[in-house]
C-alpha cells in the first residue's frame, strides 16, 4: 500500500465512521429514515385510489348476500388492511438499525487506529488481525440483521449498547490472541483487495440492508395492491 493509497483509505474510513456513528446517534433524523419515509409516502399516494375504491366496494357489499360475496368481503378487507399497514409513513423506523451502525463504526475505528495512527498496515500480524476481525464483524452484522427481522421492539437504551460495544472489543481481543498464535485459516492471498472489499461491506452494511428493505417493501406493496385489484375486479364482474 503506497502512502497515497493509505491517505485515501483513511479518508474513506473517516467518512464511514461518521456515517455509522451518525446512524447510531441520529436514528430519529438520519437521512436513511427521511428517504424511507419519502419512499413510503410516494407509495401511499400511488395506492390511495385502490384503497379508496376497495373501501367503497366494501360498503356496497354490506347489503349483498351469498357465500361468494362473503369471501370477497373478507379477502378485500384483508388486503386493504395489509396495504394500509405497509404504506404507513410512521413505519419508517430505523431505531433497530443503530446496532449495525455500532458494529460498522467500531470496525472503522479499529481500522483507523491500526492503519492511520500506528501505520502498521505493513505488519503481517496487523494485516491478518484486520482480515480475521473483519470476517467476524461481517458474520455478526448478518446475525444482527437476522434478529432484526424477528424482534418486534424497536427500542434502544444506552446501557445495553455500552455492553455490546464491550462485547465487540472483547471479540477483537480474542481474535488478536488467535492471530498472534496463528490459529486461523488463510483463504486469501492478496491483503489489499480482500481488505478493501471486507471494509466496504462492513462499514456500508446498513446501506445494503436499506436497499434490500426497500426492495422487500416494494415487492410486498405490489403484491398487496395486486390482490386488492383482483378482488375489486372480481366484484365488478
Amino acid at each position, binding site marked *: 500500500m503506497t502512502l497515497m493509497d493509505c491517505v485515501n483509505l483513511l479518508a474513506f474510513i473517516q467518512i464511514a465512521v461518521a456515517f455509522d456513528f451518525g446512524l447510531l446517534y441520529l436514528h430519529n433524523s438520519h437521512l436513511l429514515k427521511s428517504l424511507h419515509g419519502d419512499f413510503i409516502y410516494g407509495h401511499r399516494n400511488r395506492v390511495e385510489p385502490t384503497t379508496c375504491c376497495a373501501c367503497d366496494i366494501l360498503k356496497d357489499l354490506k347489503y349483498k348476500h351469498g357465500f361468494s360475496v*362473503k369471501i370477497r*368481503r373478507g379477502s378485500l378487507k384483508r388486503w386493504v388492511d395489509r396495504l394500509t*399497514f405497509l404504506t404507513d409513513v410512521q413505519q419508517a423506523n430505523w431505531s433497530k438499525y443503530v446496532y449495525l451502525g455500532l458494529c460498522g463504526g467500531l470496525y472503522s475505528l479499529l481500522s483507523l487506529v491500526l492503519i492511520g495512527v500506528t501505520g502498521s498496515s505493513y505488519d503481517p500480524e496487523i494485516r491478518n488481525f484486520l482480515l480475521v476481525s473483519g470476517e467476524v464483524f461481517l458474520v455478526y452484522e448478518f446475525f444482527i440483521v437476522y434478529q432484526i427481522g424477528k424482534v418486534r421492539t424497536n427500542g434502544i*437504551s444506552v446501557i445495553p449498547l455500552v455492553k455490546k460495544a464491550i462485547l465487540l472489543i472483547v471479540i477483537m481481543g480474542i481474535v488478536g490472541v488467535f492471530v498472534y498464535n496463528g490459529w486461523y485459516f488463510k483463504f486469501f492471498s492478496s491483503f489489499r483487495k480482500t481488505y478493501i472489499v471486507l471494509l466496504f461491506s462492513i462499514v456500508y452494511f446498513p446501506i445494503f440492508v436499506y436497499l434490500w428493505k426497500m426492495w422487500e417493501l416494494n415487492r410486498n406493496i405490489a403484491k398487496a395492491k395486486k390482490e386488492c385489484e383482483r378482488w375489486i375486479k372480481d366484484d365488478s364482474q
Partner: protein
Amino acid sequence: MNKVLKSIIALIDDWISINSWEDKNWHAPSCCVAAGDPAYGSQTGGDRDNLPPYVRVNDEQVETARYMNLIVDGSSMSPERISNGDFLLCTKIGDEERENLGYGEHVVVKTDKDYYCKKNKPVRFDYKLRRTICKVKAGETYEQLVERIESENLEDSIFLSANKKMLKEKFSESHKYYDFSKSMMLSATYRDGEIRYSFHPVSLIEYKADYVVSPTRGMNNTRKL
C-alpha cells in the same frame, strides 16, 4: 450440569442477542397506549408537548386539554389509520356507556397484568388500544357468536376461514382465564396488517378515543374516530 449449561447459554444470549439489547425493565409512561401487544414497545412514540392546544376537525375547533391525551406506541393499528406517535384525545367512560359500546369504537383498555403474567409475558404498558367488534352475551358459544357477527354484518374479516379458526382458538383460550358469565368484549387489533382478535372484560375499558391527531410531516391532521 444441565442448569449450568442453561445459565451459560442464557449469559451468551444476553450478550449477543439483540433481544437483550433493550432494557428488560423498561415500562412505558402512563401517557402511552400500546397499539398492539402491551408486552412489546417501540419506545419511539411522540412527545406530549408536541400536541397543540387546539386542533381543527372539519369546521370544528377542539380544545385538546379537555380530553385525556394518550400517545400511541407501535404500528399495530395502522390499518385503522392510527400510527406510531399519534395522539389520541379520549374521554373517560362510565359504567352505562361501557355497557352500551357498539361496533367500531376505539377504546383504551386497562392491561390485565395477571393475564399476561400467566402467559409469561412482561407488561410494558398500562393501557392497550383496541377496536370493538361486539359484546359477548353471557353463555354464548363460539358458533353463536360467529353467527351473530355474520348476520349483523359486523366484521368483514370473520368471513375468512383462517380468521374463524383464529377466533375459535382465542375464544377457548380466553374461556380458560375469564368468567364469560360477566360482560366481555370482543375486539380487534393487527399484527403486520393482519387482524388479531382479543377478548377482555368490559370493566377494563377505561377510555373511548374520540379523535386521533397525526403529527406527520410537520402538520397536525386530526380525524374523528
